[in-house]
């Protein structure tokens, strides 16, 4: 098993080295235009320089702050709305056309409005992240609660459980696996929404820096930031996987 893993690792290393080597060779010899695609060594140099630049860390802080706040607010609002909908299905039926219409709306098109309402600062980014997280977590909350094992519900009813016991001991706990998959997706989408809004117009943030570097044809810088964003995405996923393993070890 260990040898198998090592072989796979070596294959990846060879693939990446060859691909980057060809890229670097192409850029240096002029086979590919460096001003449009950059070069691997240029990207490494920019990344190294940017690592010691305070501005990068401030931008990353702004982006991550917006992601966390929009995710927390969006999830809390979605779980609350999901509870209301599951408890009062008639109210859900009334709201359904509005929720569906807002859900299918390309959310990125709302950025100009959010900027108008909340300014160029973190407010509009949080609004964007919130709008994406909300609908994803709302769907999973409703699906999770509706999908609770009916045997558990019947058994608990025959035992004379109070509404509080039924909710906390059966419905909510039973909904956690589905809810968690929604939260995982919601966090990724909050990240996507915040960076997307920063790219369009912002005072700060990794998206704003990315947009600035692209507009000044600093392609090495663009690749470097894309690498940073991808790394942040991977860390977020790993964190959620770890949390899932801890919380749902019973599965």
């Amino acid at each position, binding site marked *: 098993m260990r040898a198998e893993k090592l072989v796979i690792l070596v294959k990846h290393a060879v693939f990446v080295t060859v691909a980057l080597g060809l890229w670097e060779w192409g850029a240096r010899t002029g086979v590919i235009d460096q001003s449009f695609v950059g070069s691997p060594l240029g990207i490494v140099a920019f990344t190294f320089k940017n690592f010691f630049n305070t501005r990068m860390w401030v931008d990353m802080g702004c982006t991550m702050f917006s992601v966390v706040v929009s995710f927390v607010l969006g999830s809390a609002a979605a779980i609350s709305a999901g509870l209301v909908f599951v408890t009062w299905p008639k109210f859900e039926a009334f709201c359904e056309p509005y929720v569906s219409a807002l859900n299918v709306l390309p959310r990125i098109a709302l950025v100009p409005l959010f900027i108008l309402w909340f300014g160029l600062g973190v407010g509009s980014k949080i609004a964007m992240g919130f709008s994406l997280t909300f609908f994803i977590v709302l769907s999973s909350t409703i699906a999770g609660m509706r999908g609770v094992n009916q*045997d558990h519900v019947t058994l608990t009813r*025959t*035992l004379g459980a109070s509404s509080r016991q039924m909710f906390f*001991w*059966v419905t909510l706990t039973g909904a956690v696996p589905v809810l968690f998959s929604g939260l995982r997706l919601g966090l990724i989408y909050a990240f996507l929404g915040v960076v997307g809004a920063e790219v369009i117009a912002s005072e700060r943030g990794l998206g704003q820096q990315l947009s600035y570097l692209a507009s000044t044809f600093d392609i090495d810088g663009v690749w470097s930031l894309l690498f940073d964003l991808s790394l942040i995405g991977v860390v977020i996923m790993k964190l959620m996987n770890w949390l899932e393993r801890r919380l749902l070890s*019973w*599965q």
Partner: protein
Amino acid sequence: MIDIQKLSLSFDGINTVLSGIDFQLQPREFVAVAGPSGCGKTTLLNLCAGLVDLPSGHHLRLANAVPQLGSHDVAYMLARDSLFPWLTALDNAAFGLKVRGVPVEQAHARAAEMLQRVGLSGFEKALPKALSQGMRQRVALARTFAMPSPLLLMDEPFGALDAQTKLQLQDLLMQLCQESERSVLFVTHDLAEAVALADRVIIMSSRPGCIIADVAVPLERPRSIRALQTNDAFHHTYAQVWRYLEQGWTQHEG
């Protein structure tokens, strides 16, 4: 313990589910209800548990009271084990007691005692995913018997088990009933199980479900499932119950 007189039930006002049901269950009596699928056995159990509303003007009493959902006098055991996958065997066994307000320590002590009784000592901290189907059903039995409810409603609790595990659990159930002196209304589609476990077997016909026979089982207690295999009275009663069930089919088809 249960008194039902001329009970009929229809959910939609058109199709009759139960028709003229009339029977009594005495304290410490074990009554099995057998019949074809869809004859209303589970509905009858649900009426007793208060899961289905009693139609107005009909008579169904549990210890002289109208059935109420969540009554502490009743413990319900479902066809599937319905263990909570996020709770340990001990927490699952204590679940009923906790819902009914028994302090946690007391509930755990009683649950541990019942787990030991059903042969699961040492598995207190195991999650359901680590238990076999038979072990899970043992935990469900422990949960049911941990509660002091005098009436047990059991809906085909061993229906999903393999033959060998089923025999073991039937023996265990008989021992537990013997020790705790509960009244049991046991729904099953397995006639051999009905005759082996019960004091009386009620046979129901297909829809609309009505009682076509109430057969007394002439077998002494305590019983052993294995010993019953060579018991003439067991086989005679089994054949008798079969005949009634066939009559029910004929009547229905006729």
